[in-house]
């Protein structure tokens, strides 16, 4: 009976490591707007949550969605639209998140029955359809011009014209979203979800319905992506067609992979690296697309564990 104590010891150690990671991430995010300008820091929060949401589906369900821009983008549009209509910030963000969730129901229903590469193509196609709709539905989306100059009315004494206030407000929203993702992965649902990912037949044979788990995971992931999209619209004050573009769907994959899939924290780090890199490149007037393309290719070929995944791998070996 030596197995039990050793497992318990390992579980304890893992809990400690996880706590260290969490505290480290929290400190980093708290001081971030002092290190870089607040709008960029806010972008990292929004994209970070987006990538965490994406990884709930990619890493923990094994479903590579190539159309997550649909949820991020639709929520960004709805949030901006509601703010433009004079709604308060929490209402607009909630509206955006719910619209992403509502959009996810039919898309998830049609796509989760297909596996592997088929799933990727179907989600990509739906996102593209949405991007065409956004282009055409100019009354709501502003078409090529996008939406800008919308109000951000103060809430509970907070003045959202100040970018630092916006950042810390969004940090609170981010914490809620991250907690939801964290709880989902650690819950019995999350365990079953990963069992389905690892061996669908086995999971089915012990009574789990794979399609139902994938469907639910898809909805949670899409809603969190929507929450992230509403943060982006609120933080940026501008929403353009870029938010529903296929590149956006690809970018979130890149952030997740670079940071480390199934590590929970990793995608946030990945988002930070990609956005900082892009910022440096744009400032230096270097070709952004070529460098990010190279980073993407190199990550897929040689660095599939990602930054956090590699670190954890090293620490576990020591």
């Amino acid at each position: 009976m030596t197995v039990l104590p050793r497992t318990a010891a390992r579980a304890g150690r893992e809990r400690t490591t996880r706590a260290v990671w969490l505290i480290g991430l929290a400190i980093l995010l708290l001081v971030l707007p002092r290190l870089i300008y607040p709008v960029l820091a806010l972008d990292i929060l929004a994209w970070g949550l987006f990538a965490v949401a994406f990884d709930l589906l990619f890493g923990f369900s094994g479903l590579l969605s190539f159309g997550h821009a649909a949820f991020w983008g639709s929520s960004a549009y709805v949030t901006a639209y509601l703010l433009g209509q004079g709604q308060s910030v929490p209402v607009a963000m909630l509206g955006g998140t719910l619209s992403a969730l509502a959009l996810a129901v039919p898309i998830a229903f049609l796509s989760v029955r297909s596996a592997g590469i088929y799933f990727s193509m179907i989600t990509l196609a739906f996102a593209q359809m949405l991007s065409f709709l956004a282009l055409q539905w100019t009354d709501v989306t502003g078409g090529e011009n996008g939406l800008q100059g919308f109000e951000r009315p103060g809430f509970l004494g907070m003045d959202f014209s100040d970018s630092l206030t916006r950042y810390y407000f969004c940090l609170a929203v981010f914490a809620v979203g991250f907690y939801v993702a964290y709880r989902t992965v650690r819950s019995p649902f999350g365990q079953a979800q990963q069992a389905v990912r690892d061996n669908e037949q086995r999971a089915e044979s012990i009574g789990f319905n794979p399609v139902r788990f994938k469907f639910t995971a898809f909805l949670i992931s899409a809603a969190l992506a929507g929450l992230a999209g509403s943060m982006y619209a609120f933080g940026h004050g501008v929403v353009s067609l870029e938010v529903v573009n296929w590149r956006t769907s690809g970018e979130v994959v890149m952030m997740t992979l670079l940071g480390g899939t199934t590590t929970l924290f990793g995608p946030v780090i990945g988002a930070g690296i990609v956005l900082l890199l892009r910022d440096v490149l744009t400032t230096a007037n270097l070709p952004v697309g070529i460098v990010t393309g190279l980073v993407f290719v190199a990550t897929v070929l040689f660095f599939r564990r990602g930054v956090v995944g590699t670190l954890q791998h090293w620490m576990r070996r020591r």
Partner: protein
Amino acid sequence: MNTQLLLIQVFNGLVNGAFYALLSLGLAVIFGMLRIVNFMHGALYMLGAFTAFALGQAFGLGFWPSLILAPLIVAGIGMVLERGLLSRLYGLEPSYNLLLTFGLTLLTQDLVKQVMLSQYAVSSAPYTPPPVLSGVVNLGFVVFPKYRLFVIGLSLLICLITWFVIEKTRVGAIIRASTENPGVTRAFGIDVGKWVTGVFGVGVGLAGLAGVLAAPIYSVEPYMGAELIITTFAVVVIGGMGSILGSVITGFAVGVLAAIGAALYPPIANTLVFILMTLVLLVRPSGLFGLPEGAR
């Protein structure tokens, strides 16, 4: 809507369908053999158009030599990428190759953009069809641009040849066998790995050919393949990844249906393909010609 307008739309639909067919045919051939989805297909289509344009600028080569050379160059580039990069990921989840080819797409597009800006100081360039194919043909009941008729005809011919080679020849038999069961095929003494590169080259060569054909219709532009490839993915989902002939028929049929739909109700033009995909997914999740997941 009068009959003449409808006929014109059907022809235009066939032109779009010709591109869908050539691209989804290439995708189907590659998927059949390698079980990967080549996201780069759109970028290689663009590269075909760009190569034709660049050959014209650098060596004064006209449409006809480019129509042969550009697809060969694209096939060569594709084969180098397959050997050098894609083959490293064959043991892993097929998703990783989708991601790899996505990254290569970003890279290719922006490289071409840089080259076009620095070498030719343009962000997009027109490409003129040869004089023989300019002008219109009067078919009696309708007038139609010669070049577009040529595109429909040539792409039909290429699709038929590809289908014939795969279904009726020894080479095709080897390819089909390697697709269906690589292990058993290897046991018969056939080096499956060697065929993979060739098949990949043919698949992307078809994309290059489609690119050259598209150059005179749309202008040569770094992002010309990006949205087309996503629409083609929807076409592939509609047809299912099962059969070569299926992908060709679906390509043309979707092109025509989308064009007619667009004529009846213009706002739907861009989204009709995706609506068709949704309907097919509701009724037949594995596509019109595809086998159910378990049967593969």
